[in-house]
């Protein structure tokens, strides 16, 4: 097999004699990267230019959704990005709910927010584990994945699946009611997560401070121009959160803050995520205190798919995922399947323009720190 065909260096200009520049492919099987490639042009130890090479995970998700009815799409929608499956479930369910105009019961809304915030917690724990591994702090990796498993136990108790909840948050509400004893278990899990945050000093430890400070600095003007959203934008100093600016479900009735930092480097992003985890714990406690009684799905009995039609219309739904702003544009012409679904994930912008911008001028040794501080998920980018 021709190696040149695989790497495809024709997009980068050829190296001229006598210079110290060379091409480097930071590839999909490298232990410092995910399944995503970046073509780098390097001079000595410094990166001059970067070009992202996505597409290892492209399934054509948006058109797959056109072949399936909404209840099937609810199961498929958690596979947009495995690391925050319930959040994507929620985005899709909200889009279909807004199209059909159904009034989701209050108890279902509270359960949806509960699951979404727990999913945000476990996503930040994954990020913390992988970031620690990339920066050489193995204890953080073991602690994060150890404590994350308790949250997955809660998911298994409520939805039946550890990572994929099989479309638990479906159009109309949630699939089934919470089981016995969920509250005690969730409170215990929150205590354990807080214990872990105490031990890890809220992500403010000396390893991160030495290796991530001043690395990958993104200033606010560039961030807005490149389409950054989420914790990366909040670390540049912009106080914005879709849960507060464009509220959905019951977020306008809950009490939580939006943490920001000003420096915009990798260390600031770590601190922002640590504080966000505390805010999520606060939200879950409020939801547990206020959980109302009632139905959990409207209609209570799911009609057979051959009889359900989505009314004609178009919607654009925006949610705050753990990584940024996740949106779905859904257009229907009155049939059983949606006519067009456009999924906009936060990583589409973070991994291509923002990463190329940040890698320019960086040292090779800092590439994992920059990469993982953006909290990327290649599946979200390729869909």
């Amino acid at each position, binding site marked *: 097999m021709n190696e040149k065909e695989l790497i495809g260096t024709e997009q980068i200009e050829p190296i001229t004699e006598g210079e110290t520049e060379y091409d480097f492919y930071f590839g999909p099987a490298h232990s410092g990267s995910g399944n995503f490639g970046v073509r780098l042009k390097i001079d000595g130890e410094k990166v001059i230019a970067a070009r992202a090479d996505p597409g290892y995970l492209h399934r*054509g998700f948006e*058109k797959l959704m056109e*072949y399936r009815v909404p209840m099937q799409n609810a199961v498929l929608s958690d596979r947009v990005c495995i690391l925050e499956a319930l959040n994507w479930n929620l985005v899709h369910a909200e889009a279909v709910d807004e199209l059909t105009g159904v009034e989701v019961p209050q108890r279902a809304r509270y359960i949806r927010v509960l699951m979404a915030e727990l999913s945000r917690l476990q996503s930040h724990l994954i990020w913390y584990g992988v970031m620690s591994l990339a920066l050489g702090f193995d204890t953080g990796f073991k602690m994060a994945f150890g404590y994350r498993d308790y949250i997955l136990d809660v998911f298994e108790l409520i939805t039946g699946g550890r990572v994929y909840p099989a479309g638990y948050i479906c159009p109309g509400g949630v699939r089934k009611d919470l089981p016995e004893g969920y509250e005690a278990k969730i409170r215990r899990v929150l205590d354990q997560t807080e214990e872990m945050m105490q031990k890890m000093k809220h992500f403010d430890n000396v390893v991160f401070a030495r290796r991530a400070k001043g690395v990958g600095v993104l200033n606010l003007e560039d961030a807005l*121009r490149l389409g950054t959203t989420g914790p990366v934008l909040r670390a540049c100093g912009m106080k914005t959160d879709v849960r507060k600016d464009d509220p959905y479900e019951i977020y306008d009735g809950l009490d939580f803050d939006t943490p920001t930092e000003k420096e915009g480097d990798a260390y600031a992003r770590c601190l922002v995520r640590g504080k966000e985890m505390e805010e999520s714990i606060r939200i879950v406690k409020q939801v547990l205190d206020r959980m109302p009684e009632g139905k959990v799905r409207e209609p209570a009995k799911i009609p057979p798919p051959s009889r359900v039609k989505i009314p004609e219309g178009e919607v654009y739904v925006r949610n705050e995922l753990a990584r940024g702003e996740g949106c779905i544009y859904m257009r229907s012409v009155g049939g059983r399947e949606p*006519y*067009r679904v*456009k999924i906009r994930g936060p990583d589409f912008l973070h991994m291509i*323009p923002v990463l190329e911008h940040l890698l320019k001028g960086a040292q090779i040794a800092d590439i994992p720190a920059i990469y993982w501080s953006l909290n990327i998920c290649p599946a979200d980018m390729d869909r």
Partner: protein
Amino acid sequence: MAETTHKENKVIDKISSKFKIEGKLQRERRIWVATDKESLIALCNFAKDLGFEHLSAISVTDWPEEGTFELTYHLWSYSEKILLTIKTKIDRTNPTVDSVIPVWEENAQIHERELHELFGVEFKGNEDLAPLFLEDWDGPPPFRKDFDWRESVRHRYYDKANERERAYWD
């Protein structure tokens, strides 16, 4: 409802007084506006000056019976907290439209590159329309409605001669 949608109505009035087009208020924080291809860039610049500085997504919907592609630009304003969607239709047999890179720069460039690969839409003014996801793809643009995935998968993977897969061919 009137007082909660006050600022959305102000935005609609500003746009319709300048461009003579109808703005639709779907609910609070959601405005939909349809325009024609020629005034697209002018409307985008006007929207950016009104405060819609964040381009959330660009999408293409394929209408084969009408013979058009419908482009939608979803814009969010951090200051006004409103989502404005601009829709425009272009011809399907010769799909070209002006690129919005002068307005939203790299953010728009990557969205247009993806749509060029998946739908075949030409964006005039976007120099970098190299394939993004697919490697060595020689088929039609994959997301168009006339490329039926289930048929193509059936032909490629299911064997007519195999007894057990006969059911997929009946």
